[in-house]
């Protein structure tokens, strides 16, 4: 039977001593955590292990002996090492041995039968697996293996053997706290035995984080309380707030900031990553916003924009007027119903005239408004983009109105047509039974119905054309707004901290492990090197992606086409709390 011994690479050059670690019987593997050097007093070693076991809930015991010697083994040392097996009884008892300066290792595991039996105690083959203790300590396996009981003992249920190794090393931090400069009774060798490393900046940041978080949490709670006050819940304001995507974005950012600066500690690594991702996302957003602001101010683009806005709006209105004149004539060679055409065309032209007057009324204030709006870019690039999207929506409000008029008209016409078509065939819609039933109509009903049907059919091309043109315009505006929203969502949801971690410290996010067979000589035990297999970038984004506002289209392509055909109004995205129309 092959036993596995996980040995840390940092202890491969340590002096002789005792192997300390955890034995996992289900996987027949021993995870060596540290080496205790001579001289030591067995009682003190046992005390230290009991302390560590209590602190970390990991069943740490003495697993065997480690011998790092020069040339031939001395007989006395060999007997001494075997004698230790009697003091720290552990089944199986490992004896690892390495010649100094060479790569030949030897190890055997014996089942100590007791001093009375002189028959050869069973020996098993051992496989040595080297692992980098620091990397295994810091890394996190994805998907996180759910290890059931965190009690003292070796309960590992059916969690994979390697997840148990990672878990053991991660939980044994208490063992790695002492280094060789300590004056303790027991001398240990592990990855931190050369001295515990820490960074001054990190420590200072940790000290400063407490009061700063408290202060910011208070400020943020004031802001949220102010925004939740009653004034904003009155009807006109609440309606406007719900329609503007800027408010949605600001609310989202406020929630994120509240979460980041909350004084509660993160409960598990996933929450910590989420907080870190949010913080980096907010910082990047603000940095990009400030860059945009500086670029706008350097070239005085705001002034130019304000000067260009009115002519652009005028130009758009003129183009729309040309379009309507074209529709009122013979568009694409089609012959329209002159009367209806003139009515609709004149109605829409008057609407444009009203809109242009409104824009000209606003023109003195445009520059100041734009300047204040430009200032909002220091809250973040996403806020600036949301404001841009809202400005586009406001400037193309007349297109939206035209679309609604055209759609309603078309919808009425379609419903009328379908109902009169049923009358034409002698059927009617039974509201009680929700189905089409036959019905006997009077002659005058049939006459009027057929007349109306004919009228509607011949007026259909005109209405349909207006509907088509304005729907296309509306879809164009919706597409532009959709692209802006997509960009905002991308900035909101990209987990930049996780991606940076995967780039710079790939061992922190582990998808699994990989093994490499080291130089092998016959007669010697098999030696493997266990390395961490990092998570691929796509899985990093998928696992750690931040939740966004959730404003994405709810229609499938089929339902969208159906709605367009029947003239029902389409709302490409719904904000939270919107009712269906």
């Amino acid at each position, binding site marked *: 039977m092959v036993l596995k011994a996980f040995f840390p690479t940092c202890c491969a050059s340590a002096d002789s001593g005792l192997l300390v670690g955890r034995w996992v019987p289900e996987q027949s593997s021993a995870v060596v955590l540290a080496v205790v050097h001579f001289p030591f007093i067995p009682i003190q070693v046992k005390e230290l292990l009991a302390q560590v076991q209590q602190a970390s809930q990991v069943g740490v015991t003495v697993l065997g002996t480690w011998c790092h010697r020069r040339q031939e083994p001395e007989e006395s040392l060999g007997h001494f090492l075997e004698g230790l097996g009697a003091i720290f009884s552990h089944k199986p008892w490992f004896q690892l041995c390495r010649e100094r300066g060479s790569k030949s290792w030897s190890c055997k595991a014996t089942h100590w039968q007791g001093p009375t039996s002189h028959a050869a105690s069973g020996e098993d083959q051992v496989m040595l697996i080297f692992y980098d203790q620091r990397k295994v300590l810091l890394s996190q396996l994805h998907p996180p293996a759910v290890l059931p009981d965190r009690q003292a003992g070796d309960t590992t249920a059916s969690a994979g*053997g390697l997840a148990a190794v990672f878990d053991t090393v991660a939980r044994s931090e208490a063992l790695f706290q002492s280094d060789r400069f300590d004056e303790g009774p027991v001398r240990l060798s592990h990855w931190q035995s050369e001295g515990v490393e820490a960074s001054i900046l990190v420590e200072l940041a940790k000290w400063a984080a407490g009061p700063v978080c408290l202060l910011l949490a208070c400020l943020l709670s004031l802001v949220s309380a102010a925004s939740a006050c009653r004034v904003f819940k009155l009807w006109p304001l609440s309606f406007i707030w719900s329609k503007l995507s800027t408010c949605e974005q600001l609310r989202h950012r406020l929630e994120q900031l509240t979460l980041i600066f909350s004084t509660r500690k993160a409960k598990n690594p996933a929450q910590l990553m989420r907080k870190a991702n949010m913080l980096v996302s907010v910082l990047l957003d603000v940095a990009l916003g400030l860059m945009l602001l500086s670029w706008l101010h350097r070239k005085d683009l705001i002034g130019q924009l304000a000067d260009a806005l009115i002519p652009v709006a005028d130009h758009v209105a003129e183009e729309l007027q040309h379009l309507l004149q074209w529709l009122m004539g013979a568009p694409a060679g089609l012959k329209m119903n002159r009367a209806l055409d003139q009515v609709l065309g004149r109605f829409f032209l008057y609407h444009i005239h009203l809109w242009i007057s409104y824009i000209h009324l606003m023109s003195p204030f445009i520059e100041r408004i734009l300047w204040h709006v430009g200032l909002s870019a220091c809250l973040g690039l996403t806020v600036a983009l949301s404001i841009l999207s809202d400005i586009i929506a406001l400037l193309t409000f007349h297109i939206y109105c035209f679309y609604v008029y055209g759609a309603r008209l078309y919808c009425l016409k379609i419903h009328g047509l379908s109902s009169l078509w049923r009358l034409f065939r002698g059927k009617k819609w039974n509201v009680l039974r929700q189905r089409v039933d036959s019905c006997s109509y009077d002659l005058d009903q049939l006459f009027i119905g057929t007349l109306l049907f004919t009228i509607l059919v011949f007026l259909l091309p005109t209405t349909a054309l207006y509907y088509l043109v304005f729907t296309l315009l509306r879809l164009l505006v919706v597409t532009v707004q959709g692209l802006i929203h997509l960009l905002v969502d991308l900035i909101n949801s990209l987990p930049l901290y996780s991606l940076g971690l995967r780039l710079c410290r790939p061992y922190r996010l582990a998808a699994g492990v990989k093994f490499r067979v080291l130089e*092998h000589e016959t007669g010697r035990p098999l030696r493997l090197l266990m390395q961490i297999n990092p998570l691929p970038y796509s899985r990093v984004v998928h696992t750690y992606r931040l939740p966004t506002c959730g404003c994405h289209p709810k229609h499938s392509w089929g339902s969208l086409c159906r709605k367009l055909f029947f003239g029902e109004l389409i709302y490409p995205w719904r904000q939270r709390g919107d009712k269906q129309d």
Partner: protein
Amino acid sequence: MEDEQSFSDICGGRLALQRRCYSPSCLEFCLSCPRITLRSLTAVTCTVWLAAYGLFTLCENSMILSAAIFITLLGLLGYLHFVKIDHETLLIIDSLGIQMTSSYASGKESTTFIEMGEVKDVVINEAIYMQKVIYYLCILLKDPVEPHGISQVVPLFQSAKPRLDCLIEVYRSCQDILAHQKATSTSP
């Protein structure tokens, strides 16, 4: 101990199977795929450049030629780094697991390791691939919920696509180790 044999893949290309036995409980199979030939590389480059030159004579814009060179270089790099697999390795370690490594022509390696506890069996399966019926070696993974069920089928040597004779070699050695593993795992 090392062993090298020559086989062919389903299209007739030459494959080399290298078998290394580190110990009775650890085996490694390395299957090398046919290399990228100078002829195919020259053919692709010439086609792309001829097409670009044809476009250039139509449009009289020299950007097309530089764009063609750029595209050829990027395409070659992308192909070597993401598409062309140089050799595939299968490492079986008794009581630890099975590891599959694909090494790309640019040196990139992508590794997957499956623990022995998840492996139900290693079998040779038949599949319909385009217009052929081929054999492939695959690992069956245990279903955590149902004891006799299979949760996933992981095919091996997907780019090399060796024929049945090569697969039988690998299959026999895998089964030896799996049988040994099952025998020792059931005994206390």
